[in-house]
């Protein structure tokens, strides 16, 4: 009698458990008996999710309120040292690149029209290289950054005064696919 009680109690407990946690307490699964002769057909096909790709609706690289949308670093005449005011900008891009390991950047260096046309290629390159180094020390590997120079041939401003030249002595950060 005692044995029967224990057995029943266990059975009840197990049953109770089973309803709560079917994984931990597998019940003896009897094959479900169809309640009718109607055969059920699936109403949806298996989901094809191979061609769906989402894009973040707010691309931080394009968001004007995000510092990552700031892409231009300006330089002094004949200089290739990155001014302190651009430290935050470079830091944010380095952080973005660290968080997005599949992204790459091109650093495009430019010079103003003063100086020899051919040697200005080198000056633009020095500037791009200075930004590369500043980004590299923040942990971005060099194979994710390409530096290129346009010399003086792609001015941002077309004038021939200091205001225009200041706009043209620059490095632009360009992300892959842009």
């Amino acid at each position, binding site marked *: 009698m005692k044995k029967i009680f224990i057995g029943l109690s266990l059975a009840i407990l197990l049953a109770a458990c089973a309803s709560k946690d079917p994984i931990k307490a597998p019940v003896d699964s009897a094959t479900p008996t169809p309640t009718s002769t109607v055969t059920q057909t699936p109403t949806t096909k298996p989901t094809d999710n191979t061609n769906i790709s989402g894009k973040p609706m707010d691309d931080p690289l394009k968001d004007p309120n995000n510092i990552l949308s700031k892409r231009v670093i300006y330089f002094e005449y004949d200089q290739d040292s990155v001014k302190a005011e651009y430290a935050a900008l470079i830091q944010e891009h380095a952080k973005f690149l660290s968080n997005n390991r599949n992204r790459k950047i*091109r650093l495009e260096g430019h010079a103003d029209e*003063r*100086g*020899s*046309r*051919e*040697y200005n*290629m*080198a000056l633009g*390159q*020095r500037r791009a*290289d200075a930004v590369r180094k500043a980004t590299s020390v923040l942990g971005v590997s060099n194979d994710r950054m*390409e*530096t*290129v*120079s*346009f*010399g003086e*041939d*792609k001015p941002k401003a077309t004038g*021939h005064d200091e205001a225009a030249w200041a706009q043209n002595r620059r490095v632009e950060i360009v992300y892959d696919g842009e």
Partner: protein
Amino acid sequence: MTRDITFSRGDFFASIFSRARCVVLIALAVMIVVDSLAALAAPVTKASRLFYVGMAILLASLFAVQSASAQLIIDVTTSAGRQIPVAIVPFANEATAPQNITPIIGNNLARTGLFSLVTQTGISRLPSEPSEINFADWSTRATEALVIGGIYPSADGRFDIRFRLFDVAKKNQLASFSYNVTASQIRATAHKISDEIYEKLIGERGVFSTKIAYVLKRGPRFELQVADADGFNPQAVLSSLEPIRSPKWSPDGTKLAYVSFESRKSTVIVQDLATGQRKTVSNFKGDNYAPNWAPDGSKLVVALSKDSVSQIYIISANGGDARRVTESNSIDTNATFTPDGKDIIFVSDRSGGPQLYRVPVAGGAVQRLTFEGNYNVNPRLSADGKLIAFVNRDGSKLRIATLELASSQVSILTDGPLDDSPSFSPNGRTILYESKAGGRGVLGSISVDGRVKSKLSSQSGDVREPAWGGYGSAGVVR
């Protein structure tokens, strides 16, 4: 005695404006002549006065006959020493020929600063055959050399062009040639005749038949153009919305190497001018720029940033691997081979500002060449390897300078303020360079002794980065 002669010829029939401009220039030239005659009244001889008058008349005739195909305007300034007085008699039948000849010859010779053109007014019968020459007509005009000739249509639509060159004092013939050419070859024949005259009278090869290449920027568009050495007959061989830079002729004159940004970065392309075929020969990571041909045409020296900041490399003219020549932590760029192909002259900022250096191609000690000033760039060697033309910056002024290698003598040839990209003529007498006039890019040319200057400007757009082709460029692109 110094005289300044400024003249211009160009697209005369293109617009009333340009005609008015030419008239102003003639007036200006006459004023300068009158002025200098007054100032130098004592030493002026009858002959030189005649020369001035003759020059003005000849210029007027140049303007009148120039065809509408011309697209560059030429201004010449001469501070001449001795000039050979040459009379170039209008060729028989020239007026009815599809293209004038003698104005082209006259302009070619005058532009060198080595010749003065003799007036022909008052001569009753201008000769076109030897039997018609009255040498007294010319010796009284202090003429040393006389050019006569004619252009005769032949039955097949071609033209026979004949010319003869005479030594007036000795009354003997120095040269005679005849050419059977098509109408489209008449201008080239005029250059050929100029070369013959130049060689006979100066004793060295002329460069009038060679070609120049340059970049023309028109609005947003870049064009690579090839033109006759006098700037006329320009033809675009490439057009792009991305920058085109640094055109350089292959030694045989059949190809141009240049830098293209059509893939949004610099790559070096070699283009065959006869076939138009283009090949990307350097497209490494980073910058691929500043190409220059090895003397044998099989290789190019380039500046690449694939391993660090710009260093000098040598690549095959067909592309392929790059062999590194310089090993520095500095910018090394703008390299050019010496004519023997053994050394490279290049620019480096290893000492601070950019200076010229020399290094053996096979490797070895680097030798610094320039010490004056803190910005010396863009070296080009003369064909004999004795002279380097380069760009010197003084303050903000960019000037064309030369360095004589044997003596280390530096000469500043131009005043700037934005003179750049020098290129030697194949005979080493003249340097073509990029300059600015009226806010636009124009081509300047200056004799290596600094005496003769001229400017060539396009009527539309900025002309920049000229490259003078070698003797082999004469036959390429009609």
